[in-house]
């Protein structure tokens, strides 16, 4: 894969893909390449970088909408939003460090192509819930658009959702339009120390339904908590349950007092304000609290489970495979780093066992970090069967009939 194609604009992108179709040349698609480690390894004859399709083209804070080239750096988007007191409500996690990259990288197109959402996801929706419109070039070398700049829109199929989380396997995004939100005036995180997993599950469930109106809920077992850059968390000496409150200054202050009072019988509490609260959720949402690669974290899984089954499911997996787990999304997201196998080349690293437990608990598993050889052998995304697998294949064939875009990134042979 020596050749790099780097089109300057959308028409160049169309040309590049149309040429690849004509020449039957496969393409590995990237923005900044920060998430190259996410998904199955792509074996392609050329690399197609959309890095030059960058820049915010429309930002209307009063309309709560932004439109940007697919490769616009997240840092640029976040800076522009910050200036107007706004944010992305789905809180995209910075996965760079998980793949050994410096923090602060990545593009909006990458976030959308991988449908990445952070800790606010159960309360504010996923990346896919915030995409309003797209422009893209399909694997047929044709430009198409969907959606628009307005939030409420049922004009035609929701192709924006189809492309969100499709890892560049159906079309290459050139332009994305998305919803933005006001940044809350205040944010505080209440930490509750020393809960057992079962108690934490009950605390999180109660908090989601309770009067506090929380915007995130996580449970960090002792080892995960110890890796935090925040003293209060790292020196807890035990597990930490964390609940976030956001809103008006006076409201958050009052709600924090009430929440801590309600939790008083469950253990010691502490609170993180402003910046420290943001640091906490940046850590909790991005998987960096699990062991590093080479230190027990060679394989990292992200499990999406019904929230009330998360803690139990994660516990069973840990019991079966060892290693570490950590919980976000009020139990609905389990980060999992099974203990490294003695001979990782020979086995699947426990993937089959892990997936069986995940299915029993009504969820699915994504292998978000693993050496390339493992990702070639072990399905990265939940394997599909029967009519669903056939449907996925037909969708791929309709959008990319020659299989030129990111071959095999999601599923083997697709």
């Amino acid at each position, binding site marked *: 894969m020596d050749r790099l194609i780097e089109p300057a604009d959308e028409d160049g992108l169309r040309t590049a893909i*149309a040429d690849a*179709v004509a020449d039957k040349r496969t393409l590995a698609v990237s923005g900044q390449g920060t998430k190259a480690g996410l998904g199955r390894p792509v074996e392609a004859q050329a690399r197609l970088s959309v890095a030059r399709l960058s820049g915010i083209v429309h930002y209307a804070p*009063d*309309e*709560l*909408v932004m439109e940007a080239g697919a490769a616009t750096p997240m840092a640029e988007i976040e800076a522009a939003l910050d200036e107007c*007191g706004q944010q992305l409500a789905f809180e995209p996690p910075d996965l760079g460090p998980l793949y050994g990259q410096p923090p602060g990288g990545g593009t909006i197109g990458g976030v959308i192509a991988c*449908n990445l959402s952070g800790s606010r*996801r*159960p309360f504010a929706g*996923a990346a*896919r*819930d915030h995409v309003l419109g797209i422009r893209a070039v399909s694997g047929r*070398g044709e*430009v*198409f*658009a969907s959606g*628009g*700049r*307005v*939030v*409420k*829109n*049922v*004009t*035609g*199929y*929701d*192709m924006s*959702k*189809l492309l*969100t*989380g499709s890892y560049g396997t*159906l079309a290459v995004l050139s332009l994305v339009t998305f919803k933005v*939100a*006001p940044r809350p*005036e205040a944010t505080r995180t209440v930490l509750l120390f020393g809960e057992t997993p079962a108690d934490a599950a009950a605390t999180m469930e109660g908090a*989601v*339904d309770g009067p506090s109106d929380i915007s995130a809920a996580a449970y960090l077992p002792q080892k995960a908590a110890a890796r935090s850059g925040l003293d209060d968390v790292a020196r807890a000496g035990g597990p930490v349950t964390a609940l976030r409150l956001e*809103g*008006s200054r*006076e*409201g958050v202050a009052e*709600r924090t007092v009430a929440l801590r009072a309600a939790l008083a019988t469950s253990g010691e509490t502490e609170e993180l304000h402003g910046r420290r609260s943001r640091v906490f959720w940046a850590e909790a949402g991005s998987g960096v609290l699990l062991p590093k690669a080479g230190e027990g974290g060679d394989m990292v899984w992200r499990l*999406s*489970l*019904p*929230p009330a*089954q998360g803690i139990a499911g994660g516990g069973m997996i840990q019991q079966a495979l060892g290693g570490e787990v950590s919980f976000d999304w009020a139990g*609905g*997201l389990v980060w999992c780093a099974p203990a490294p196998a003695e001979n990782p080349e020979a086995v699947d690293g426990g993937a089959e066992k892990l997936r069986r437990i995940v299915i029993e608990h*009504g*969820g*699915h598993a994504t292998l978000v970090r693993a050496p390339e050889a493992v990702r070639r052998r072990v399905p990265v995304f*939940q394997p599909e069967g029967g009519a*669903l697998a056939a*449907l*996925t294949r037909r*969708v791929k064939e309709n*959008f990319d009939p020659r299989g030129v875009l990111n071959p095999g990134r999601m599923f083997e042979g697709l």
Partner: protein
Amino acid sequence: MEMPAPDHRIISRRRQIARSLRRLVPADAVIDRAAELSAYESDGFTAYRQKPLITVLPVDRDEVAAVLRYCADEGIKIVPRGAGTSLSGGALPLADGITLGLARLNRITDIDYPNRAVTCGPGVTNLAISTAVSSRGYYYAPDPSSQVACTIGGNVAENAGGVHCLKYGLTTNNLLGLELVMMGGEVVRLGGKQFDAAGLDLLGAMTGSEGLLAIVTEVTVRILKTPARAVAFLAGFDSVENAARCVGEVIAAGIIPAAMEMMDGPAIRAAEAFVGAGYPTEAEALLIIEADGPEVEVAAATARIELIARRAGATTFRVSGSEAERLAFWAGRKSAFPAVGRLAPDYYCMDGTIPRASLPLVLTRITELSREYGLAVANVFHAGDGNLHPLILYDANKDGELRRAEAFGTDILRLCVEVGGVLTGEHGVGVEKRDLMAEVFTEDDLKHQQRLKCAFDPDGLLNPGKVFPTLHRCAELGRLHVHRGQVPHPELERF
């Protein structure tokens, strides 16, 4: 508006087809008598009527699958139908097609409070979900104004919204899982009770697909805890401009209310005369704003919203003092359609979405068009998310008035597109806006949408004649026209 030419070979086999269907589902589930078929000849979009070939009312997934498998084998078209409340003709029958009514799949099969999920048949009504969980203090957020009657399956097909979607999203944002039956009878499950579904986002693609992709036989939605406190405000203004400015400033201040609705003078007066909600009848624009959440946050929002409204020139401002009063404030808005309906024998409800900032311009232009067409109009508007519902008043018995109302409506939708908006915010394309799709999309845009349909329904048997102005065969759409990039590719003009 033309529908696909009926296949007379199918029509001539009607009795035989009905007989075959009676072997697959109980005899009383197959309706083929003309008198009984009349009940299915239109939906909420009453301008067009057509008796279906046959109506079938299955009771479960297996019956749905059996009917679809038979129809796929025989090449018979299917028109899915929920409660028939579509405002865009999504369930308009075909003379050579079977109307598949899903209203009998109406059982709530699972209420899972710890996971805040309800699983039910597609024929359960929207409101029934909230009712089933209300004793435990939960509700289902999307609340289309037809929620008493409309089904959750229909909500999925149309991606239904409602007044609270400003804060809580549309159907697509509250849907966790689906069970589908494909045209060939295969069953596919998407999502579940977890937040993120696996694989391609086919759950997202299905939502709002207007019954053209697959038949939904089970739905899992997310329920929410009823907010600790909800307060509604009524703010009267003497101009639409001032009311629109208030909406913009609330958002700019970083407040996302649970709902933010606007009614213009004619709509205010019609609603007040109908239900006596206490609306200021002298106002030219009324905002109904709702704040919900913890007590302290609602109190903070109340103070800020009142200040913003007064600064924007509100002539009246009332805060609901009790739950009964809050519901009364909403009663006027929720009955706006029937209230306006009393002003004329017929009304035509439009559904464009526009960027909020262009609201004054669009309403001024609608007033001008109203004069040009000689038809009155009242405006009800989901102001928070820019979704406009002009109600055009006409009399179908007067020669040419229906056509004039349709032409007026088309002009309004063109105007929406012109200012950067779209044809439909929540009612769907159906047959109503089908022929306007080319105003918004290029041919390649539409072809890619149809390719998604080809992946689901390659023979084009599900709800043909809806959504797409031109039907291409999947074989034609699938053909790869290999042209190198440098060969000039004519970009189609966007209107």
